[in-house]
């Protein structure tokens, strides 16, 4: 858990690190006693948490396609055994290489015997992964799942600042901070990814967690999270530029879309304010340290003995307080600011998914329009004596009818998936916000308690001046 020890520094990276965790992103359940998704719960906006209870059928053999598109409603299965295995990934930083930093991904599984996935049979295991591996994983998942309505968690950004960071020395504060930010971001990213019941079953994810060596991801420039989202959402952008708005027959989608728009605006605003707080808190720490030194000097030159001693004590108190501010700034950042930053990025993914639904609808509509045209053309051909052309037309129509049917199915499928995803997402969001913000408030509590200790120690010193 999170503590404000004055000796806390960033230079120590351990696998189970002491750095403030965005903990209690609730761990994932991978128990084998699972059910298929309940039929009715997919259709309505049901608060019942699908993944806290039963999980999806876990099977390594089912091909990807089954996971992506079900042909029809799966048979309703009776619930439910409580989750028995939990998987918690932790990430530690190993070393910096030319190609990028390496990270140690440490997975702990709480009840390995209860899972059917071979990779989770052991209680604890580690794999080594490069930063580019994480980006590679995300790009694969995004290209597979985003366009059919799954909210794929975005990977941490490759910041330009990070790439050109100058190595001043081993204990370079800003370099250490950068690595820690990245490590923490990767940990949260991975946690969110494995928590997603569908994504956890994805072979790329399993490979990522299991294989000792992954082939180096190619061309990571193109694989930045933002780049992927841009690529996959390019079509979605085209939708935004369309003047014809979708004929939304489902009020749920309209309402949710608006809700996420508002949330986006507000979270960005809040995030900006919190970032400002982090900045000012760091400044406060630096300025307090400088004042402490100055007060010590003043104490030295003061020729009244008792006052001189009191001023030195004041300097010591301020020095301790400066460390307190530094620790608090870290809490401000890692708990509060990063939570908001993560959700700003997540909501971008959510909005993308909604846009994909519109695109899917459009595709369906286009097929229908084309079918209509073809039918009209065929009707005209009836009166001409061109049996070949007529046959061709009939063939095309048959094909198009199939397309229209598929289009409708795709649209219904993506709508279904989005409903489920949004329900899951919102539930997660509520949990995340509540847990992490409370943790953050507890950090504020700790700071005040320390402050009280320091000033209580100083007060008698001040009173002792005579």
């Amino acid at each position, binding site marked *: 858990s999170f503590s404000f020890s004055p000796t806390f520094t960033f230079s120590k990276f351990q696998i189970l690190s002491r750095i403030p965790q965005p903990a209690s992103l609730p761990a994932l359940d991978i128990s084998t006693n699972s059910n298929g998704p309940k039929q009715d719960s997919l259709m309505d906006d049901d608060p019942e948490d699908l993944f806290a209870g039963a999980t999806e059928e876990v099977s390594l053999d089912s091909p990807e396609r089954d996971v992506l598109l079900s042909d029809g409603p799966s048979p309703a299965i009776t619930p439910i055994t409580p989750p028995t295995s939990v998987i918690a990934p932790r990430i530690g930083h190993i070393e910096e290489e030319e190609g990028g930093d390496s990270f140690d991904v440490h997975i702990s599984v709480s009840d390995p015997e209860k899972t059917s996935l071979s990779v989770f049979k052991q209680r604890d295991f580690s794999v080594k992964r490069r930063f580019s591996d994480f980006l590679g994983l995300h790009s694969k998942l995004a290209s597979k799942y985003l366009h059919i309505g799954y909210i794929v968690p975005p990977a941490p950004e490759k910041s330009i600042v990070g790439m050109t960071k100058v190595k001043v020395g081993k204990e370079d504060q800003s370099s250490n901070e950068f690595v820690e930010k990245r490590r923490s971001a990767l940990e949260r990213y991975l946690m969110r990814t494995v928590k997603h019941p569908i994504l956890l079953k994805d072979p790329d994810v399993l490979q990522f967690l299991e294989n000792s060596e992954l082939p180096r991801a190619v061309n990571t420039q193109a694989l930045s999270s933002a780049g992927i989202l841009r690529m996959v959402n390019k079509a979605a952008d085209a939708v935004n530029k369309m003047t014809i708005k979708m004929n939304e027959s489902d009020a749920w989608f309209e309402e949710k879309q608006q*809700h996420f728009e*508002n*949330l986006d605006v*507000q*979270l960005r*605003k*809040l995030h900006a*304010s*919190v970032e*400002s*707080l982090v900045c*000012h*808190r760091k*400044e*406060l720490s630096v*300025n*307090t340290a*400088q*004042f402490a*030194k*100055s*007060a010590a*000097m*003043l104490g*030295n*030159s*003061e*020729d*009244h003995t*008792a*006052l001189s001693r*009191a*001023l030195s004590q*004041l300097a010591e108190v301020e020095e301790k307080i400066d460390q307190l501010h530094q620790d608090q700034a870290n809490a401000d950042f890692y708990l509060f600011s990063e939570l908001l930053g993560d959700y700003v990025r997540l909501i971008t993914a959510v909005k993308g998914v909604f846009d994909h639904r519109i695109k899917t609808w459009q595709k369906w509509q286009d097929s229908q329009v084309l079918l209509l045209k073809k039918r009209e053309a065929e009707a005209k051909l009836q009166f001409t004596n061109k049996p070949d052309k007529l046959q061709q037309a009939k063939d095309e129509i048959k094909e198009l009818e199939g397309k229209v049917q598929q289009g409708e199915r795709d649209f219904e499928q993506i709508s279904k998936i989005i409903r489920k995803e949004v329900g899951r997402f*919102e539930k997660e*969001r*509520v949990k995340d*916000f*509540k847990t992490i*913000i*409370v943790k953050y*408030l*507890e950090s*504020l*509590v700790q700071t*005040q*308690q320390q*402050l*009280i200790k320091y*000033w*209580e120690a*100083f*007060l008698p010193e*001040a*009173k002792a*001046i*005579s």
Partner: protein
Amino acid sequence: MLKGFRSHDLCVLLQPRAMNVDLEMDATLQVDISDALSERDKVKFTVHTKSTLPNFKQNEFSVVRQHEEFIWLHDSFIENEDYAGYIIPPAPPRPDFDASREKLQKLGEGEGSMTKEEFTKMKQELEAEYLAIFKKTVAMHEVFLCRVAAHPVLRKDLNFHVFLEYNQDLSVRGKNKKEKLEDFFKNVVKSADGVLVAGVKDVDDFFEHEKTFLLEYHNRVKDASAKCDRMIRSHKNAADDMNRIASSLYTLGTQDSMDLCKFFLKVSELFDKTRKVEARVAADEDLKLADLLKYYLRESQAAKDLLYRRSRALVDYENANKGLDKARAKNRDVLQAETSQQLCCHKFEKISESAKQELIDFKTRRVAAFRKNLVELAELELKHAKGNLQLLQSCVGVLNSNT
């Protein structure tokens, strides 16, 4: 004109106790600033006097004074040769509301870009800041007067009595360009001389020690004062951020899903309250620590000036001695040289005697003031931290019990 905010006419009644000096309030002469009015570009102080001295027509009376008149009084002390042997109480700094006014102006301009609640909140904050600056300037002017009233010799000064009693405008114009230029050159000469006399080792151990001490002390107080100001500014900035965070959380609380609504609103409320505490902490640090350091920066400068005057008198005395020797050698103008030498000797000894007492008093005052303020600082820090802790713990308790 500031949009949405009138030209301020703040009328404030103040607690008259001087804060940075520990002065014995003598029944024979008590001075305080009982009232003050801030107008567009000036501040009017109501100086209130209670005295049993026969010099005054009444036992209790008040006059209205502006900052320039305080400066006139201070300068008259500086220029008075009879007071060369005293630490002249430092002049109060000019009331400076520029920064605060600028902020209010910016707020007025930006009114359209924020919600009504945000605007009202920020306006209240800035008004509170303005009020705090105002209270401070009043306090500093009052301290000056109290120091004069407490000084055994200065309290009898005629200009001081005129300042206290004459109920018309003193019509002291600010210094014109020529006079300001003269002042400038005087200061240049003084600092050049200051270097000169600082190098001369004093035969008197007491003064030698004081010189070394004051030179170093003054520089370190200056540094501490600047660093303290920066620290407090960061503190205020952080409090401002919390204000914005509270507003954003509030908006989220009114918009978001049921599950999070109450949560956000509660946290918003907490940030709002805790922000007020943080702002108070910064304000109290400003009052008890920053102002203390600033005051002793000015006082230590005044003490240095005293030492300088004494050194000048010493140099004059030594020169007069040399002049007398020369005159005796040439046997010309001996009487004149003798008189001159006696005058210089007398002046030097008089200054030395009173300077010694002044410097001892200075130390006593300084120690007392630091003690008082450091104790009060620690007590206030504790009070606020405990208050903050309580707010945070109760909020966390409520949030934990709701989930």
